[in-house]
């Protein structure tokens, strides 16, 4: 009896250990076009696959494979038809009518039509839907009603004029799901766990924290997918993702470790792709700090811009995974125009600082860690350049993202730093999204304009750009506003980040989109 209890404890352990997970299916030989299984390692386990509740690009990228919105973007960020073939706005800009693609079916076999669009978008703007994220599509100025004109036409009525409406409809939260599927367990109308859309792949299984398996939708309306299944493995550690692709156990990986980019680029069995991104990385300056009035002067803020060598940081800290900013936004946005450059010039920076009486000024700098590519290392480099320009830099202090967000997303009176590193990635490719960073109405806690910057001229131009129906008028207004922001310099404008991902040379046709997603739906064996 006595000996047996110890033995049975050990045996219990062995039994538990033996009850492993199911066997792996081996990667069998693939033809020139058709493949068995594509394995992709991503860093984040999607919090939810419910299209209406999407906030992170990694989760959205998975949802995109299963459920499609009416419109999407191409590699340059331009809006193009998907489930809708064309769209028009009324003369007053308050209603938008989308004409739907005909003959499309959801992967559960039910037909895609205007009713389904109404169901999905109503669900998005309904506050009873769990954790729904309508963003600009909801609220008083967003969609007020969705009307079925006929089977193939659907009309959206907005609360106020909103020129980039079509661009905003490219977001994954506006994806269309089968109304019937929302009541099939485990889904409920308020919480969709396994989305059923019109996409090239459909949900097969999921083990939380480990993987999501999707299988090809053989009845897909467009170009058919090449792999029978795609497995998204959740591997949070960048080094572990690199191990997987080096071991031949993953075909595609998201975000390899930044330091290893050169080594990966030298490996002839791998392709490193610097995917596009709309994310700008900047050192945000507190422009209203009563304790440091020097930073309220645009000349001082311009001097800080001259003091930092952006090209050197991109080359040595980011290993080429970025392009320097020449405007306060990424090239991928509608409304972007190139407005200038603060070419690295240390003596000019020192002169300007001296002229403004800011030589030897003390600034406090903070940075998140692990949020953006090489974030805290970039902040260290910036601190080095500012020190060389004669400033006393406290920091960079670093913290994890929620703590960091809690530190910078505060009303001006509670601000505790002079400079902080921040990234901003518009949810859709329109300048209006980037200008949220420069509008007084977005000063925390209302938004994330953490430089507390505001310029009535900019606000006026942005309002024009957001409401004008003529695209060239919009572009003009945004361009003028960008010139002012560039000169006012509420940021040290650093760079437009790239979104690196790696594929083996056995895979082709994996493409990156400027919203930091990479599309594997049309991948095929090389």
């Amino acid at each position, binding site marked *: 009896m006595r000996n047996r209890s110890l033995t049975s404890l050990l045996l219990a352990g062995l039994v538990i250990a033996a009850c492993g997970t199911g066997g792996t299916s081996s990667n069998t030989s693939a033809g020139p076009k058709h493949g068995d299984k594509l394995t992709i390692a991503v860093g984040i386990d999607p919090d939810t696959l419910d299209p209406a509740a999407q906030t992170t690009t990694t989760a959205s990228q998975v949802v995109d494979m299963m459920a499609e919105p009416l419109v999407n973007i191409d590699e340059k960020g331009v809006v193009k038809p998907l489930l809708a073939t064309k769209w028009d706005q009324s003369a007053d800009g308050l209603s938008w009518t989308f004409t739907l693609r005909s003959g499309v079916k959801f992967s559960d076999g039910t037909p895609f039509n205007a009713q389904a669009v109404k169901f999905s978008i109503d669900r998005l703007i309904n506050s009873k839907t769990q954790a729904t994220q309508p963003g600009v599509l909801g609220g008083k100025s967003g969609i007020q009603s969705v009307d079925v004109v006929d089977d193939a036409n659907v009309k959206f009525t907005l609360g106020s004029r909103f020129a980039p409406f079509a661009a905003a409809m490219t977001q994954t939260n506006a994806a269309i799901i089968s109304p019937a599927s929302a009541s099939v367990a485990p889904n409920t109308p308020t919480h969709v766990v396994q989305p059923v859309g019109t996409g090239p792949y459909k949900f097969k299984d999921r083990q939380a924290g480990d993987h999501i398996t999707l299988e090809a939708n053989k009845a897909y309306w467009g170009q058919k997918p090449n792999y029978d299944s795609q497995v998204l493995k959740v591997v949070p550690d960048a080094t572990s993702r690199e191990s997987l692709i080096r071991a031949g156990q993953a075909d595609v990986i998201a975000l390899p470790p930044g330091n290893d980019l050169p080594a990966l680029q030298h490996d002839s069995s791998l392709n490193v792709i610097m995917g596009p991104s709309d994310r700008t990385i900047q050192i945000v300056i507190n422009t209203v700090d009563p304790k440091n009035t020097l930073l309220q002067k645009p000349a001082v803020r311009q001097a800080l811009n001259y003091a930092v060598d952006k090209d050197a940081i991109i080359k040595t800290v980011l290993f080429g995974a970025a392009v320097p900013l020449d405007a306060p936004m990424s090239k991928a946005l509608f409304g972007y125009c190139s407005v200038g450059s603060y070419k690295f010039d240390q003596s000019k920076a020192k002169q300007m600082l001296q002229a403004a009486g800011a030589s030897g000024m003390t600034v406090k700098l903070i940075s998140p860690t692990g949020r953006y590519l090489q974030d805290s290392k970039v902040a260290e480099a910036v601190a080095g350049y500012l020190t060389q320009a004669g400033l006393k830099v406290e920091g960079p202090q670093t913290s994890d993202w*929620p703590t960091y967000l809690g530190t910078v997303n505060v009303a001006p009176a509670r601000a505790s730093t002079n400079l902080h590193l921040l990234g901003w990635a518009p949810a859709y490719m329109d300048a209006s999204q980037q200008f949220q960073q420069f509008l007084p109405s977005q000063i925390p806690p209302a938004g994330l304009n953490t430089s507390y910057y505001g310029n009535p001229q900019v606000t006026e131009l942005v309002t024009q750009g957001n409401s004008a129906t003529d695209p060239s008028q919009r572009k003009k207004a945004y361009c003028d506003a960008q010139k002012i922001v560039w000169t006012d310099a509420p940021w040290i404008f650093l760079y437009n980040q790239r979104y690196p991902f790696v594929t083996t040379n056995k895979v082709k046709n994996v493409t990156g989109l400027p919203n930091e997603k990479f599309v594997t739906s049309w991948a095929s064996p090389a």
Partner: protein
Amino acid sequence: MTTYLVRRVLVSVPTVLGVATVIFLLVHLLPGDPARVIAGVNATPADVERIRHQLGLDQPGWQQYLTFLGRLAHGDLGTSTHTLNPVTAEIAARAPYTAELASLSIVVAIAVGVAAGVVAATRRNTAVDLLISGAAIAGVSIPVYWLGLMLVVLFAIDLRVLPAAGAGGPTSIVLPAITLASFSVGFIARQTRSAMLEVLGQDFVRTARAKGAGEPRVLVRHALRNALLPVVTTIGLQFGTLLGGAVLTETVFAWPGIGRLLVDSIFFRDFPVVQGVVLLIAVAFIAVNLVTDLVYAVVDPRIRYG
């Protein structure tokens, strides 16, 4: 024995309640706003407020605490703020992976550690002893993170015989289990060696040999049996080390267990899941301590629980 068990279980109730209270306070003291983290940086203030309300985070702290305790009494750990699934479901999906990894590791650690310790003790001051003692020190000293990576480089990338990460098949547990066991193997081996050395010098061992018992019988029945008591304590204590190591091991090997769930949940400020996982770990600790105490009585018949 039964009375003893019942008493121990009853005594652990206030301990669990204390843990629940401390962890509730700790997570609510963490900087960072869960509603903001869930909503994402592009969310409108209205979105953030609606999520805060849906999650009940707009209620006063004491009310949230009472709700938490009330649910706990019914075995309900609440709803994950990150995934909106019940916390019990989140944990149930992950706990088997950690249980599998930890139990395999402890079995490996006991088997290898005790055997190595016995061998080292009987070959004291020989090359074998030096080798085992050296390896044991290495096992205790090498960081789990580094060892895991080196094993991956060797077995997954260079030799391509084992999976580098993930939980996709029977071989995928091999590298994580070895990595996680390494510290405990070293620790148990060192404990066993010194306990054996002490016992081997005692009179009853000489008596056993004198009465003609064979060496294996002397070592196992007489010496090891008596040396085991401190080793059992060590093994019980190793459980805590294993859970700590599991967090790192699960990260390196993308193993979907509760260690990683805990770390992810802290980063997402998913308070209900953090509370649930910590409670589970506390309960597991209490259970292992109890089992350790019971095993004492098995190993040493002089110990009786009335």
